[in-house]
C-alpha cells in the first residue's frame, strides 16, 4: 500500500461540520476548500477556509447535493480529496464512486461498503452471517400475508414495519394489535414508495424501552479495525438525537466488550475503511441488537474525541492517505466522562418550531472541560434552507456528575439572542432527576416533556430592577447622543467642543 500525500481537501458540506473539518486540515498543514450556495456567501466555513467556490442556488438539491458540480470544482481547484462531513452526500455511494472515477479520494469508506450498509435488508443479512445479533424479524422482502402471520407468530407483537431503503423514521409503522397488521403493511409500503421510490419493507420486533447505543469504529486499508467505545444516544425527540454521552450510564464493562467486538465484526463484514458508527438497540435486559451502520462521521463524534483524545477527522485523513491507524485497541482508554448538547435555532415552547433569523448577540461559554463546535456569529443570518442545529456544546469531567455540573454551568453562560434556541430546554434536562441518575431510555423526552417545558422564568425582583436600571441608562444615553448629534450638525466647525461634549457623555 503506497502512501498518498493529501495536500488539499474540498469539504462538501457547510455549517459547523465544515468548520470542524477545516480545523483538523489546518493542524495537518492541508489546504482547505469550501463550497457555498447563494445563501452561504457569509457563512463561517467560507470565511475560515483557504479557498471558496460558489456551487449554486440555496436549496440543497441545487448546491450541496449536486455531486457533479462539486467534483467539477474539486478538479478545477486541484483538490486531492473530498471530505463529505455528515448528511448531504456523505452516504451517497454514487457520489463516492464518481469521486473514485475522477481520481479524487473520497474521505470515507469504499462505495461498495456504503451500498451494502445502505440497504437495510442486505445489511441485516450480512450481520447475521457475521454473527452480529439483529433485532428478530424478517430477512427478506415481505411477500404475502401468510408469511407475515407466520413471522409474527414466531417473534410476537408488537412489531415495527420498516422501509428497506429508509431512514429517519419515514415509512415506519408500529403494530401492537394483530388486526392492524394488514393495513399497516399496506400503509408502510405506500409511504416507502412515495418517500424512497421503493416499496420494499421488512418486519422487526419492536423493543419497548430500548437504549440507543452506538459504537465508533475506525478501520484502515491494512486490515486494522478498532472501536473507540460507545456513545449513549437515547435522549431523542422524534428519532432526532438531542443529547449524547459517553460512557453510557447503562451498560456494563462486560457488555461494552461484547458490543465492541460485535461492532468490529460488523465493520469487517462489509470490508469497511475509514470512520463509521454501528448503532445498536439495547433492551431493558441488556440484550443488544444491530440497528444500522452510519458510514460517515457522526454529529456526536466530539464526545468520543474528548474521552479518548483521538482526533477522528485526522484519523479519517490518515486512513484515506493509506496510513495505518495511529494507535492500537489496547492503547485506548475512556478517560473521564463527556456529554454533548445539540443547540438548535428552534422554539421548544412552540412545538420545536424552527426559528431561522439573525444572530443579534452571542456569548459563548469557555473554561476547563468545555468545547463548542458552532458556526454562527454576531450579525449572521441563519438561512432557512438547512438544518436548524447551530452549535454543539461538549462538556468533559472526571466523573459523570462533574460533566453534568459543567454542562449546566456552560449552558448558563451560553447566551444567543436574535433567534430562539433550545438552550433552556437542555438546561431542564440537565436538572432532571432521571437524567442525573442515568436512568433513561429512548422514551425519556416523551415521558418528561411536560416538566421539561415548565420553565418558571421568575427572575429575582432585584434582578428585574437592575435590568430596568440598565435599560433606563442605555435609553437615556442614546437620547442624549441623539440630541447631541443634532446639536453638532449646526455647529460643525467647533470640533473641540464636539469632542468635549462626546467625552462628557462617554461615561456610559
Amino acid at each position, binding site marked *: 500500500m503506497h502512501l498518498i500525500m493529501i495536500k488539499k481537501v474540498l469539504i462538501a458540506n457547510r455549517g459547523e461540520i465544515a468548520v470542524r473539518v477545516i480545523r483538523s486540515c489546518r493542524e495537518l498543514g492541508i489546504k482547505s476548500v469550501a463550497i457555498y450556495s447563494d445563501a452561504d456567501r457569509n457563512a463561517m466555513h467560507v470565511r475560515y477556509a483557504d479557498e471558496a467556490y460558489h456551487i449554486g442556488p440555496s436549496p440543497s438539491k441545487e448546491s450541496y447535493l449536486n455531486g457533479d458540480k462539486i467534483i467539477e470544482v474539486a478538479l478545477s481547484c486541484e483538490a486531492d480529496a473530498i471530505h463529505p462531513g455528515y448528511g448531504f452526500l456523505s452516504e451517497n455511494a454514487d457520489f463516492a464512486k464518481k469521486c473514485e472515477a475522477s481520481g479524487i479520494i473520497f474521505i470515507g469508506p469504499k462505495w461498495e461498503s456504503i451500498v451494502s450498509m445502505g440497504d437495510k435488508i442486505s445489511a441485516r443479512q450480512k450481520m447475521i452471517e457475521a454473527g452480529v445479533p439483529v433485532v428478530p424479524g424478517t430477512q427478506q422482502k415481505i411477500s404475502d400475508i401468510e408469511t407475515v402471520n407466520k413471522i409474527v407468530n414466531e417473534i410476537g407483537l408488537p412489531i415495527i414495519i420498516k422501509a428497506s431503503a429508509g431512514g429517519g423514521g419515514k415509512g415506519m409503522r408500529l403494530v401492537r394489535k394483530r388486526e392492524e397488521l394488514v393495513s399497516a403493511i399496506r400503509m408502510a409500503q405506500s409511504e416507502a414508495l412515495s418517500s424512497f421510490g421503493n416499496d420494499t419493507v421488512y418486519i422487526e420486533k419492536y423493543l419497548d424501552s430500548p437504549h440507543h447505543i452506538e459504537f465508533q469504529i475506525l478501520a484502515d486499508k491494512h486490515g486494522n479495525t478498532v472501536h473507540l467505545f460507545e456513545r449513549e444516544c437515547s435522549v431523542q425527540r422524534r428519532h432526532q438525537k438531542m443529547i449524547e454521552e459517553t460512557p453510557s450510564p447503562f451498560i456494563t464493562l462486560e457488555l461494552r466488550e461484547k458490543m465492541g467486538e460485535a461492532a468490529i465484526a460488523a465493520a469487517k463484514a462489509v470490508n469497511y475503511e475509514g470512520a463509521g458508527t454501528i448503532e445498536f438497540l439495547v433492551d431493558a435486559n441488556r440484550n443488544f441488537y444491530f440497528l444500522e451502520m452510519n458510514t460517515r462521521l457522526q454529529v456526536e463524534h466530539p464526545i468520543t474525541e474528548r474521552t479518548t483524545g483521538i482526533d477522528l477527522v485526522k484519523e479519517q485523513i490518515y486512513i484515506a492517505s493509506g496510513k495505518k491507524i495511529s494507535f492500537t485497541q489496547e492503547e485506548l482508554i475512556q478517560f473521564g466522562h463527556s456529554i454533548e448538547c445539540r443547540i438548535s*435555532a*428552534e*422554539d421548544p415552547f*412552540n412545538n420545536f*418550531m*424552527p*426559528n*431561522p*433569523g439573525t444572530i*443579534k*448577540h452571542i*456569548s459563548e461559554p469557555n473554561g476547563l472541560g468545555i468545547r463548542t463546535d458552532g458556526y454562527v456569529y454576531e450579525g449572521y443570518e441563519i438561512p*432557512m*434552507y*438547512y*438544518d*436548524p442545529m447551530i452549535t454543539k456544546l461538549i462538556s468533559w469531567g472526571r466523573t459523570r456528575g462533574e460533566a453534568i455540573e459543567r454542562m449546566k454551568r456552560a449552558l*448558563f*453562560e451560553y*447566551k444567543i*439572542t*436574535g433567534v430562539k434556541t433550545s438552550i433552556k430546554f437542555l438546561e431542564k434536562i440537565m436538572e432532571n432527576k432521571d437524567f442525573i441518575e442515568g436512568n433513561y431510555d429512548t422514551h425519556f423526552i416523551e415521558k418528561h416533556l411536560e416538566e421539561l417545558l415548565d420553565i418558571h*422564568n421568575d*427572575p*429575582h425582583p*432585584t*434582578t*428585574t*430592577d*437592575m*435590568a*430596568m*436600571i*440598565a*435599560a*433606563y*441608562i*442605555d*435609553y*437615556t444615553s*442614546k437620547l442624549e447622543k441623539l440630541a447631541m448629534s443634532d446639536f453638532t450638525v449646526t455647529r460643525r466647525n467647533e470640533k473641540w467642543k464636539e469632542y468635549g461634549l462626546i467625552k462628557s457623555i462617554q*461615561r*456610559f
Partner: protein
Amino acid sequence: MALDIKIGDRIANVRLVKKDGSKATIEVDDKLYDVDIVMVEEGVYSIIHDGKSYNIEMIQGNSPKNYFVNTYYSSLEVDIIDAQSRYQQNRNKDGIHSGDKIISTPMPGKIVRIPVKEGDVVEKGSTVIVISAMKMESEYKSPTDGVVKKIYVNEGDTINSHQPLVEIE
C-alpha cells in the same frame, strides 16, 4: 427624567435621582437604588449593587425602545414606554377588534402548499397554509370559523417573518 419601563406584566416608573460618574441613585417605583453602573462593552453593563455584581447584556430588539436583556440568571424582554409607544399600543388594540384574522409566521420560510382559495369557507383549526423552514414543514391553521378573504402569497414563494399570508374574515 422619568420613564415607564415594562418587563412581562410589570410596568415600573424609573427615575434618575442623581448621578456622579459611575455612581447613580435611581428610583424604581418607590424603591431607591444606589448603584455603580458602567458600560463595559458595547451594550453590556456591569452593575454593582449592595456588593452584588450583575452582568447585563442589552440587545436592541425591533426598535430602539425594545431590548432583549440577558443576565446570567435570566433572559428578559424590556420595553420603554413613552407617549409614542402608548399611542401605538392603543392603535394596535383597535386593529384586533376589527374582526380580521391575518395569518403570518414568526420565522422566514417557503410556502409549500395553500390548500384553500379565496372565498373558501374554513373551520377553526383547519389547515390554510403549509410553510417549510429548515427541513421541517409546519401547518398553519385557521384561528376561527370564517371565509378566506385574501391570500397574499403563492405556493413556492419565499416569505419573511411576520409577513401577512392569509386573511380570514
